Structure formats: C-alpha cells, structure tokens
C-alpha cells in the first residue's frame, strides 16, 4: 500500500499524540493514580502504535507497543507509577519523537532500535513479577497478575447485574449443560437513531450462538428504548467470548461491546474481579487479549487476529469515554499554504477596494449610491479579513504545552525543585507567529529556571518556599498578545551587570554609573554582552537573550524586563495579533507617502518651531511635562521637507514601551488599513523600513517602523 500521501497526516498526528503523551505522563507523575490520565495515555499510545504499524514503521511500532504494554499494566492497577518509570517513559517518548523526526526528514524511520529503552520497558513489566516472556503477550500476564491487585477497575456494567431466581436457575442449568456464561455490555453509538432496533439485532446476533439469560435493563425496557447508550446481557453459550463479541460488534451503529466470563451473584465476588478485569481493560481497544482472557475458564491458545483489526482499533475507543467526549469533531485540517493563498487573495481584495475608494474620491463622485456601495464593500472586506485572520489563529497551547516537560527535566538536571504554572494557553495568535515564538519562550524559561531561581538552600535561607515557581501567563491586550515569563527567584542584580559591563569594556565606569537600571538591564540583550557572560551549559543569564530579542522584533513584537532584586524577574513579550494587515497612519514626507503602524502611535501634535529646545545638541519638545526627542523624518528618509520651516510642524508621537519620540512629518493623509508586503532581502538593509504596501492607486508606499527609530 502506498502510504506516502498519508505521511503528512501521520507526522502531524504523531506529533499531536506525542505532545499529548508528554503532558499526560507529566500529569501522571503528579497524580499517579488518576485513572483518566492513565486511560488517556493508553489511548494515545495505542493510536500511535496503530498509526506506525499502518505506515509500516516497524521499529516505531515495536517501541510504542512495549510502551503501551506498560501503560496497559498500569491501567489495570498491576503496576504502580513511580519516578523511575516516568523517567523511562519520558526517554521512550523522546525516542519515538526521534523516529518521527527521522521520518519527517527522510521518510524512513532510521535503524535505531532503541533497544536499551525496550529492555527497560520490559524490565518494568518483569519486575512486577508475572512478566510476559516477550512483549506481544501482555494479556497472559494480566490474567495472572490480576488476582493480586484487588482494586476496582473499570469494566462492563454487567458486573452490577443482579439476577432473579429464575435467571439464576437458568444460569445454573446452562452451566450444568457445560455452557459458558458471559457477561456482555453493549455500547450503542451516540448518534444511533433506532436504539431499540439495534438492540433487537444484537439479541438476534447473540441468539445465533447461545441463549440470553438475563438483560439489564429488562428485555422489555430495551425494546421500548428505555436505556441510555449501553445495556448488559448475560449469555449462556457454547461458543467463546470472542465469537459473541464479534457478532455483537458486527451490528452497525454499535460502538463497542465488552464482555467477560460471568460468575454472577455476590457469593462469588472474590473470584469475579480476577477474571473480569484483565478481560475488560485491554480488550477495549484491541481484540487479542480477549481470547487470552478466556483462559481461566477454558484453556485455549490465543489466536491473535490483531493484524486486520489494528487499523480499526483506534476508532473503537472505550465506549464510556466516547460518550463523555464530543463525538463529532467539527474541525477540518487545512494546509497552511491554502490559508496563505486565501489570505493573499483577501489582501488583493483589500487593495482593489482601496483603489476603488481612491478612484471614487478622485472622480469627485456625485452619486450617493456609489459611496454607499463602496462603504458596503468596505465593511464586507473588513469582515472577510477578520474571518480569515481568525481561521489562521491558533492557540499558543501547541507551543507552550511542551514546557512543563522541559522544566521538569531542567529541575532534575539542576537538582533544583521548581514548578511551572501556566495560564492563558488558549490565547490565540497568528499561526506564523505561534510557530516562531517557541524558541524565544524556551530561552526565557530556561533562563528563569537556571539563573532566575536560586538553589533550594538559598531560598530557604531567604524565607522563600523551597520549590521555585515560574509562571507563564498569556493574555490578549487590545490588538496585542502579551506573554509573560515570571519567576520568584533572585531577580537581576543590576550592580553585578554594571560591574560586568565595565569589566567587558561595554561601558566606561562613568557611563555605567550614570545609566539607570533599565538601561543596564537592556545590556543583557546585547549580543556581545550576553555571550561573554556564559555561565552554564544550560543557559547563562543573558545567553540567547539577544536571540530572543531579535526574534521577537522580527515578529514586530517587543520584549520588556522588570526585575526586583531578591523577588524575581518578569520578561514580557508583546506581539501583534496579526502580521499581514494593519491599521496605519498615512503621512507625507518630502512629497513621498509613508505608512506608520497605528499601534505604535500615541498622539499627533501640532508643534510650533519656537517650542523646540535643544538638549545635548538634540532637538526636543516639552509636551505636557514630558521631554520628547524630535526626529526629523525628512533627514532620516534622505529627502527634503516641502513644508515652510516657519510654520507649525506636524509631530507624530510614537511610543515604544515607556519611551516616546516625535516624528516630524510634512502632512497627514489619514488612517488606512494596509497590507504589509515584504520588500525582500535586497531592501532589508534599511532598518526602520519594515516593509511596503500598495496603495489604492497602485503606488508603493514604505512602512516606517517607529519602534526601530526610538
């Protein structure tokens, strides 16, 4: 089978499942007994295995299979989760990730068998006592081990069935006749329309193989559709359990069927769990353990019809779980390129619309209806743009969900207890931005973990809790998304940075002491400064911060640091919601049109030339008590202002963080929605031009990046 066309989907989904597994295993470490987490892990591992198998990646399949075995034991309560096991599981996940990466790069899984990990996984299974000789026979072990663990595992509802005297008798008769008694719970699909009809077909199917002794709810109620999504039966038959279950499952709109030898009555309660549990749990998604599970009743060599069912298996999830989740996923996977092309078309449309507007204006349109139509078009394009932008938005969860695992690893590596608290994972950003912020965030978290947080002894001495805390908070703030990385560590020691700056010759002693703390902290973002201060292999306070800064700025974002010595540091990243289309102020300088992003503009002022003061040979104005440096845009843009030097100046007050600057322009045109176009690498030498846009008349206007000017 040619599976290459599914490769992308396989890679996408594998990564999703891996991430899911990472998160779940992490949860498991916190809460080793949580049955939901365990089931979740089991499901993800199983699906992963099935996918790898379908795609023909044998090594990956083997590894996931062995991992699944461990989870399966955990799920049945035969194994207790401990730290050592979690470590092995994490290594196993890393190895699987390795396979996925190799597959992505070469379309082949490579030849690393990861035997050490497989051995460790099997060792976990063996240590439990009743180890399977080799991995593919976990159910036998499960059956053996089951009586030891007497806890209540999730199984079919038939367990709870109480039999009337008549039914008891019928059962005994059947047993006398050397028939086997099975309890079966049937799960009907949630969207099944005629449940009673399906139930009838189930009855019919079973009766071909045996006799139905009892039903819960009663047969009458089932016929009247008086049941939710499941019903239980007690069946007497000469066939084996598999035959019965397969017969049931062959009825359409039946989600799943579970079963096990039925012992009935509470008198045999002791024996019951032993037989039921191994049968119930593993069988949910896979057929092969069922046959083995019958073993206690009648020794039978397990046939493994796994190959064919492998593919179908992921679909047959635990019926109960499916019922709890939204059954229909109302999402579509779309190639990002298709979205990009859609976005481009919307951009074209907006340009065309702008062009119509300018034509209508220049034609001095007299008819109101034309203007009305244009306004209507304008609102439609704006809405269309918003909708497309929304489609491109993805929650940052996909990026941040790997961080808890990373912090855990760092914590172990450094022997420094710490916790990561995240909030706002659902905050959405443009897909392109989300793809890019992973690395900077990772740098900052490492920085906090390695250098922000103190060692436990030090923390105790300071009266802080032994375990350090790192917070990752994301939230939307107007047209921006803010992501904060905060730690309750020692904060940045500005004195030490100052000393280093002098030592490294970045600043003279005079400069260093004249500089305020925020200027000193900004030094950490300087490439030359940070690399020189490399402290550990993990990260130095400063290592990579220059990378963080340049990356964030490339995304038109900003980085800001707040720190208090002894109390901690907060890095905040501010990113624009969308990159491609922005609201801009159009201005004229020296006869040329320029756009300035509205988000960077605070106010627009008319300033008389006589209000200009000179401080350190730089022009400044005093605006309501704030001294603001003036930037003559005509000089910066290498052109000549066409304005009468004596008249009032138009000053656009731009802000960047706490800093302000006044951009002197010739005149204002107005506010406009513009589509940002890249000018390519030939033109990127000009730092304060962030791109270009096409105006309504087809003319190209450059976009001034006010942040780069301040």
């Amino acid at each position, binding site marked *: 089978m040619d599976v290459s066309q599914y490769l992308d989907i396989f890679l996408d989904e594998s990564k999703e499942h891996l991430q899911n597994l990472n998160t779940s295993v992490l949860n498991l470490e916190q809460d080793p007994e949580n049955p939901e987490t365990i089931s979740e892990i089991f499901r993800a591992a199983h699906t992963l295995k099935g996918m790898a198998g379908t795609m023909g990646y044998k090594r990956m399949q083997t590894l996931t299979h062995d991992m699944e075995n461990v989870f399966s034991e955990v799920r049945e309560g035969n194994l207790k989760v401990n730290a050592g096991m979690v470590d092995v599981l994490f290594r196993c996940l890393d190895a699987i990730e390795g396979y996925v990466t190799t597959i992505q790069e070469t379309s082949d899984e490579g030849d690393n068998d990861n035997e050490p990990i497989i051995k460790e996984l099997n060792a976990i299974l063996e240590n439990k006592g009743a180890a399977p000789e080799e991995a593919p026979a976990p159910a036998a072990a499960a059956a053996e081990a089951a009586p030891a663990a007497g806890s209540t595992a999730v199984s079919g509802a038939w367990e709870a069935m109480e039999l009337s005297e008549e039914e008891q008798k019928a059962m005994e008769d059947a047993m006398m006749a050397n028939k086997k008694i099975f309890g079966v719970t049937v799960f009907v699909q949630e969207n099944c329309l005629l449940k009673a009809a399906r139930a009838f077909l189930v009855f019919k199917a079973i009766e071909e193989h045996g006799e139905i002794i009892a039903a819960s709810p009663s047969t009458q109620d089932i016929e009247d559709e008086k049941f939710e999504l499941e019903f239980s039966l007690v069946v007497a038959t000469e066939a084996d359990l598999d035959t019965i279950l397969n017969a049931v499952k062959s009825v359409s709109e039946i989600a799943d069927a579970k079963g096990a030898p039925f012992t009935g009555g509470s008198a045999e309660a002791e024996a019951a769990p032993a037989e039921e549990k191994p049968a119930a749990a593993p069988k949910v998604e896979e057929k092969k353990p069922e046959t083995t599970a019958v073993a206690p009743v009648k020794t039978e060599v397990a046939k493994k019809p796994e190959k064919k069912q492998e593919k179908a298996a992921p679909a047959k999830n635990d019926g109960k779980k499916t019922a709890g989740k939204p059954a229909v996923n109302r999402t579509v996977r779309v190639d990002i390129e298709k979205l990009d092309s859609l976005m481009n078309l919307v*951009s*074209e449309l907006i*340009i065309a619309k702008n062009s119509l507007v300018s034509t209508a204006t220049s034609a001095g349109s007299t008819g109101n209806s034309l203007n009305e139509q244009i306004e209507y078009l304008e609102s439609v394009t704006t809405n269309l743009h918003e909708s497309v932008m929304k489609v491109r938005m993805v929650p940052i969860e996909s990026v941040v969900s790997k961080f808890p695992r990373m912090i855990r690893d760092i914590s172990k590596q450094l022997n420094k207890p710490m916790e990561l608290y995240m909030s706002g994972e659902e905050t959405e950003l443009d897909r392109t931005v989300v793809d890019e912020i992973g690395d900077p965030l990772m740098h900052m978290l490492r920085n906090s973990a390695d250098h922000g947080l103190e060692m436990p002894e030090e923390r105790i001495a300071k009266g802080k809790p032994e375990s350090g805390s790192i917070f990752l908070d994301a939230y939307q703030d107007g047209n921006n998304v803010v992501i904060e990385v905060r730690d309750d560590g020692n904060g940045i020691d500005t004195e030490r940075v100052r000393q280093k700056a002098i030592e490294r010759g970045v600043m003279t002693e005079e400069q260093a002491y004249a500089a305020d703390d925020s200027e000193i902290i900004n030094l950490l973002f300087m490439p030359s400064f940070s690399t020189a201060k490399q402290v550990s292999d993990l990260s130095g306070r400063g290592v990579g911060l220059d990378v963080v800064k340049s990356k964030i700025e490339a995304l038109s974002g900003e980085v800001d640091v707040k720190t208090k010595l002894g109390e901690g540091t907060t890095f905040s990243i501010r990113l624009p919601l969308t990159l491609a289309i922005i609201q801009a102020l159009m201005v004229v300088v020296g006869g*040329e049109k320029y756009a300035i992003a509205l988000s960077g503009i605070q106010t627009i002022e008319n300033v008389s030339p006589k209000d200009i003061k000179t401080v350190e040979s730089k022009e400044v104005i005093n605006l309501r008590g704030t001294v603001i440096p003036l930037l003559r845009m005509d000089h*910066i*843009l*290498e*052109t000549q202002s066409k304005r009468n030097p004596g008249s009032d100046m138009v000053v656009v007050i731009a802000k960047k963080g706490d800093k302000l600057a006044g951009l002197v322009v010739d005149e204002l045109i107005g506010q406009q929605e513009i589509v940002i*176009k*890249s*000018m*390519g*690498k*030939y*033109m990127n*030498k*000009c730092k304060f*031009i962030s*791109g*270009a846009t*096409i105006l309504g008349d*087809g*003319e*190209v*206007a*450059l976009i001034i990046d006010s942040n780069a000017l301040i």
Partner: protein
Amino acid sequence: MANELSTNVNEIIQYIVIRIGDEQYGIDIKYIDNIVRMQQMTRVPQVPEYFKGVINLRGEVLPVLSLRLKMGLSKDEITKDTRIIIIKMEAHEAIGVLVDSVKEVVNLSTAEIERVGFDRGEDRGAYAMGIGKHESGLITLLDMDLVLQGL
C-alpha cells in the same frame, strides 16, 4: 555559468538583447520572467545608489536595480524605451533590472559564443561570461548570477 557554455557543443541558447548606452548585452532568456515598461517607482532610503527603488508588479513589491549604476556607468535617463526586466533565478529573490531598451531575441549556438578573458576589474567586463557574435554585432553576455551576487 562558464561551464554551461563548454559542455554542450551545439546547444542553442536564446538571449534577450538589451542596450545600455552604445553597448549590446545579452541575458539568458530562461531567467527572464517578464519585461515591463518604466512605471512609478518608490524610492527606498538608505540603500545603495544602484537600487532605484521598488515597484508594484501585479501586487508584488519588487526592487529595481539600475544595471548602469551597478556597472559603474552614468545615471539612467528615463525615456520611452526604458524597460524593467524582471529576473527570476532560483538562487536569488526576484528583482527588476532597469535597462535603456530591449532590442530583440537572438539564438546563439555555443559556436557563436566566445569566452573572452575579461579583466574583472573593468566595469563593463565585470559581469560578462562571454561574447556572442551575431549579425547585429557583438553582444556581451551577462552572468546574471554574478550581477545579483552580493547585492
């Protein structure tokens, strides 16, 4: 580039012949995406002088290079014959090249092309990879890869 010429003995390559000043230059047609008339150009500050600015080519913003200034000749004089040749090469981003005029398309076989040792220091010779002999005269064949390198 130079290797391409020597390998295939009887290969015929199409060149677009352009004029800059009194000289004829040839550009391999396979790199040419489009030829457009001079149009409104937006100046970009703080870039080398040989970048004349950016144009809007059907919704794409493209930089325009003055071949004259790049080769160290006098400034372009915009006339009705002035053309912008849009060059698309795999190794480079798309770019427009400003030329005085576009003359014709010629077929040159390898035999008609002479590899001459140019003094790379000489302005005109700096980007040449050979001389094509054609009935209309000698054509300096431009190595566009070399022109676009290090822009």
